[in-house]
């Protein structure tokens, strides 16, 4: 039993990403979408927190959202994977439930 968590707000303006990471269980997946994808970039004040969680939880960003914001995939934190919309649907299907962190 596992959960797909989605985060759609910048981690620099809300606590949503942190709260999500603090509640996610081993084997869960976290997908950053919309402004949430800023949390997937290297070199930010939160990158260590995200990287630290990337072992026990799978972390993804939505490809279209990083491209729109000028974030090249090479600038993603180690262990953070870009997925397209089909990948998004796949993640939703793979997990038992989806929880949005608004």
């Amino acid at each position, binding site marked *: *039993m596992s*959960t797909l968590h989605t985060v759609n707000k910048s981690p620099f303006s809300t606590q*949503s990403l942190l*709260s999500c990471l603090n*509640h996610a269980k081993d084997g869960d997946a976290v997908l950053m979408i919309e402004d949430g994808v800023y949390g997937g970039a290297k070199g930010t004040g939160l990158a260590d927190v995200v990287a630290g969680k990337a072992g026990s939880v799978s972390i993804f960003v939505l490809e279209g959202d990083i491209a729109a914001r000028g974030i090249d995939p090479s600038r993603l934190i180690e262990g953070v994977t870009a997925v397209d919309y089909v990948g998004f649907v796949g993640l939703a299907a793979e997990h038992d*439930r989806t*929880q*949005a*962190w*608004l």
Partner: protein
Amino acid sequence: MSETVKKFLYVNRKAPYGTIYALEALEVVLIGAAFDQDVSMAFLDDGVFQLVKGQSTDGIGVKNFSPTFRALGDYEVTKLFVEQESLDERGLTADDLQEITYEDEDDDWEEKPSIRIVSRSEMSDVMADQDVVLSF
């Protein structure tokens, strides 16, 4: 009509009056209560502010919906999980929250507290135990 009962969790992470989320969540819970599902509510992060006692909205011209939480028991919504760490971070204790109770039909209608204070890790367990999670 399916008899399957699913576990629904309504997650509240926003303070009561700055946005419409909190009021909308409560409306949806009350509507959803008509469907005889296993409903719980979670209050964490700024969501814990929704349950603080002594709210008075006369000065801001919006409805004070906090008394509505006390009616949830009549709709068989009797599990209100509140995260201890979220209270701590905001300088609150359980005593700062309004008293919310329900009458337990399986225990001679004894009045029992609906609010259950849980740790962050217990909150994770509550979330992982659901069929459907609705976020507000």
